[in-house]
């Protein structure tokens, strides 16, 4: 009698192994930050056995924190185009001539017993240097500083408590000693609680960075527009639950509208029509439309969007789910899972001749 279990069993185990191995490999290629995290965890303990792992730990740990955040951020702000960071140990035998000729820049990494400082310094340097590079060349210094401080805070927020403490002591305290920066930072905090700092504010900043200005740019006009934008989102963030705002921001460079698909009574009684009409009435000079609603109404919103797009010159730019903290009618916090659909106009004005 032939043992079928034996003949079928081995190839099946082999195929499952190959498929599993390939999937794992693919996952590692797609998520190098996870590999960094595992290697950092492994070498954190291994560095006491093998000295070279001290270097691996310092490098991989820094990379995993920064790149982990970039991976997450790219989902919220697709146009951010921030590059992943790789730390490369400098050649020990480099000479002054080579250093100068190659216009090199070398960051110092402390020993792993001071790893918090390494991560904090690298994070802040990375955010200041790489995030919103174009938009930052247009906005005011205090606005740029507030963005850098807030995004760095967000990167470190969910890591170790000591890391956040190091950040607060080493960088945040000093940064917030400037009144205007502090004021902006405070507003970012509230805007982010409402879930719209990254998907709306940073998205608008990336769009601003894509603009090109002819002749001499009026810097003050842009500074004022960014301040007004932050104030607009701050007011929006303080809206009450079920409060439906029809809100358009019609700046010189940032032109967007926010629409809330909200109250379940309205959704069920009046249906899609009222929302479709409302969105279709948005002026076509509006470059971006943000449609926000509860995740429970996701399908309802998708139907509205697909019907609107039949007649409007817009494309779906991003879809995103997030947790928002809103205020109920008694001004208490109310947590809600929200979804955001971003529509981007096909007729965006990129060039501004001033």
């Amino acid at each position, binding site marked *: 009698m032939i043992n079928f279990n034996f003949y079928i069993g081995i190839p099946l185990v082999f195929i499952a192994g190959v498929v599993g191995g390939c999937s794992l490999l693919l996952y590692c290629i797609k998520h190098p930050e996870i590999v960094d995290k595992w290697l950092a965890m492994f070498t954190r303990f291994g560095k006491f056995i093998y000295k070279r792992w001290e270097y691996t730990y310092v490098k991989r740990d820094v990379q995993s924190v920064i790149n982990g955040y970039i991976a997450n951020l790219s989902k919220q702000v697709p146009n951010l185009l921030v590059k992943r960071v790789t730390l*490369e140990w*400098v050649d020990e035998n480099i000479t*002054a001539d080579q250093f100068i000729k190659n216009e090199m820049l*070398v*960051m110092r990494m402390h020993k792993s017993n001071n790893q918090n400082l390494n991560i904090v310094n690298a994070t802040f340097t990375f955010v200041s*240097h790489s995030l919103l*590079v174009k938009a930052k060349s247009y906005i005011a210094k205090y606005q*740029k500083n507030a963005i*850098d401080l807030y995004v760095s805070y967000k990167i470190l927020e969910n890591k170790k408590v000591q890391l956040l403490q190091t950040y607060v002591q080493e960088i945040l305290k000093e940064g917030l000693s400037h009144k205007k920066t502090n004021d902006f930072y405070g507003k970012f905090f509230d805007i982010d609680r409402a879930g719209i700092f990254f998907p709306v504010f940073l998205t608008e900043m990336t769009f601003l960075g894509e603009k090109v200005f002819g002749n001499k740019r009026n810097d003050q006009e842009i500074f004022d527009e960014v301040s007004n934008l932050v104030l607009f989102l701050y007011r929006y963030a303080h809206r009450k639950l079920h409060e439906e705002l029809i809100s358009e921001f019609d700046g010189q460079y940032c032109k967007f509208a926010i629409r809330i698909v909200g109250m379940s009574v309205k959704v069920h009684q009046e249906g899609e029509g009222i929302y479709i009409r409302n969105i279709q009435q948005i002026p076509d000079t509006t470059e971006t439309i943000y449609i926000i609603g509860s995740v429970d109404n996701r399908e309802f919103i998708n139907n509205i969007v697909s019907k609107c797009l039949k007649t409007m010159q817009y494309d779906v730019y991003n879809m995103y789910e997030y947790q928002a903290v809103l205020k109920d009618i008694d001004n208490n916090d109310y947590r809600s899972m929200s979804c955001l659909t971003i529509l981007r106009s096909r007729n965006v004005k990129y060039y501004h001749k001033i």
Partner: protein
Amino acid sequence: MKIKNMAKMKEKRAKETVNAVHDDQFEGFLRKLGVYFDVVNGGKKCKFCGKIVSYYYISTVFAESDDIKFVCEKPECIAKFSEYLADKNND
């Protein structure tokens, strides 16, 4: 459209390499550059705050117009340095 998306994906996957030196190698690194004694004798200043830079508080070493410059670990100096790099990138 697809080509545009692929270009964007490629750009997203791009890496930014940052050169680094570990504390264990830092003294040797400065010696190789010929600036170690200048630093420990208080002969080098932070490019951004203009104060004498101590060996223990150097955060970055970089080359600029045929010279070797230092950045101290003060947050405002790190921020100014980042601005300086961003300006350089935009030029």
